[in-house]
């Protein structure tokens, strides 16, 4: 069945919505859907499976048609190729009604026992459950990189997690409804959601396989990851007070300028070295200009935050009595 013709289901009747993000034609996809179907059948609670196919409509149809007994609970949501995960999920949210969303990629990254463990871990004190892949099967160089990456993000955003990059996540519907996700932010869902007060639990899981590249990644990958970190760092800390971010750098530049100038003047006054033609003063001027410009961008940021963000609530209310 293609979504769009699908009637709105009664709220609350479905417990789990399983969202599979199918971004490229993946070998063994049908098998994965079948095994997920089995896992959820076993739990004995109503569920639905939605395959979000970004540019892989025909592949998804072909694979799912080969499965006989999953048809009743499986649908496909077709999105354009290259749709980011954040947008795919926001769209999927409107097409599903489960209280708990189970998101995964197009192949099992962790063992099926681990899937069950994740689902069990979502208790009343937890809003998001993410796997922490143990016994990683990818090369050591990937592990070292991913460790550094997780550490760095934890340090910058204040939400310390040990495994950010696994697509698999289990969370309450409310989490996705209330967080502003866009671009590449899905991978940082626990961090973005923490701003709204949602709590995340990491569960050790057995790593099964990793497809795509591992080891040393290409330049694009590192470049993208770096930009992601910058984005999430700014978004979690400075969207309300952008000048603080810019003044961190701007004041650094101004200090450099001041130090150079002081040095030149010190030499002039105490050592009698003439100032005229000291080219290092150009460097000082350059840094001063850089500092002022950086602060200027921060001020512009403040104006944007005030004029466009003032009406946005910063806090979320849990209860009122």
């Amino acid at each position: 069945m293609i979504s769009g013709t699908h009637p709105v289901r009664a709220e609350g009747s479905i417990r789990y919505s399983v969202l599979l993000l199918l971004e490229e034609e993946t070998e063994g996809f049908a098998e994965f859907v079948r095994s997920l179907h089995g896992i959820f059948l076993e739990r004995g609670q109503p569920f639905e499976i939605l395959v979000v196919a970004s540019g892989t409509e025909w592949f998804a149809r072909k694979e799912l048609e080969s499965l006989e007994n999953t048809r009743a609970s499986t649908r496909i949501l077709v999105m354009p190729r290259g749709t980011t995960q954040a947008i795919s999920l926001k769209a999927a949210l409107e097409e599903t009604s489960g209280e708990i969303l189970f998101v995964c990629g197009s192949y099992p990254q962790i063992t099926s026992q681990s899937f069950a463990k994740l689902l069990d871990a979502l208790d009343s004190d937890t809003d998001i459950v993410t796997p922490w892949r143990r016994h990683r099967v990818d090369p050591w160089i990937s592990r070292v990189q991913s460790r550094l990456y997780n550490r760095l993000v934890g340090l910058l955003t204040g939400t310390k997690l040990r495994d950010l990059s696994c697509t698999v996540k289990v969370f309450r519907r409310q989490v996705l409804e209330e967080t502003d996700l866009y671009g590449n932010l899905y991978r940082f869902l626990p961090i973005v959601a923490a701003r709204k007060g949602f709590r995340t639990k990491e569960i050790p899981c057995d790593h099964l396989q990793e497809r795509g590249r591992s080891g040393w990644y290409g330049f694009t990958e590192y470049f993208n990851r770096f930009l992601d970190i910058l984005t999430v760092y700014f978004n979690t800390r400075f969207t309300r007070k952008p000048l603080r971010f810019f003044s961190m750098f701007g004041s650094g530049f101004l200090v450099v300028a001041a130090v150079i100038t002081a040095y030149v003047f010190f030499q002039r006054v105490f050592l009698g070295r003439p100032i005229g033609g000291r080219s290092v003063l150009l460097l000082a001027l350059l840094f001063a200009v850089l500092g002022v410009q950086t602060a200027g961008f921060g001020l512009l940021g403040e104006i944007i935050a005030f004029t466009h963000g003032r009406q946005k609530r910063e806090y979320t209310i849990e209860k009122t009595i």
Partner: protein
Amino acid sequence: MSARLSIVVPLYNEEESVERLVAEVLRVAQSFPFEYELILVDDGSTDGTWEIIERLKESTPPLRAVRLRRNYGQTSAMVAGFEQARGEIIVTMDGDLQNDPADIPMLLEKIEEGFDIVSGWRRERKDPFSRVLPSRIANALISLTTGVRLHDYGCSLKAYRAECVRNLRAYGEMHRFFPALASMTGARITEIPVRHHPRRFGVSKYGFDRILKVFSDIFAMNLIIRFSSVPLKGFALCALPFVGLTLFFAILSILALVYDWTAGKALFFFIATALSAMAAVHLVLLGIIGELVVATSDLSHTRLPELTRRKIDIGNPPCAS
């Protein structure tokens, strides 16, 4: 219930103080000849604060409470309280019993006199010097730069006419700037000395890093108050020193050419002219982007003065009835 007065108190891990606080407020409020409400905002406490509030709620009809989903900081907690408040006058105070509820009637008297905001002034602060000094400096700076002359912006004990703050939604960690920000609405502001008690329970929740941020915030606040309707003007003022520098270096460049100074000196002045001009031009361009940002906003912030408007009919004096 339509209350005349709303007392908003943000609380964060104040289980030792909350009972006493409510008792003291109730004692003072007994003498009020009008309806009032006490709004406690639990800012994501991790101790028993919320349980105590729920218990107190049973026996205290004027008590209302909001629990935020996580710790958002005092400003957000206050804003959450403002949003719940139904009174025409809103009084805010600290949850740690350092403010004295017995001062509230004094604040109300000033409001009766016709002021829109009355700020408490802890003339004799009972805090360690290490906390008082940075606060003094910040106060002096805010007073000097924003044009709202108060001694003590950080004091939580304040009274507001509700319309002056309800639409303001101060953003970031800016509760000390409420009066300055509210001056955008044309509010009349005054201050009165209030009592201040040393901390009896718990620990003070301010860190040293806050102090550094305050300076960045003061800068931002000034821009917002003075230039959020005319950003180009703000940026052009920042550009003026660089225009001066450009002229200065340009004249030196011409002199260098005319009097045939050494090539090194001439080059120095050329580059310095170019750098300064670049800074000036970029700042003006940023200001123009600022105009774009303001023009594409909903312009609500430019209409803040309407909040305090009042009409006086000279020709038709009110009839005695």
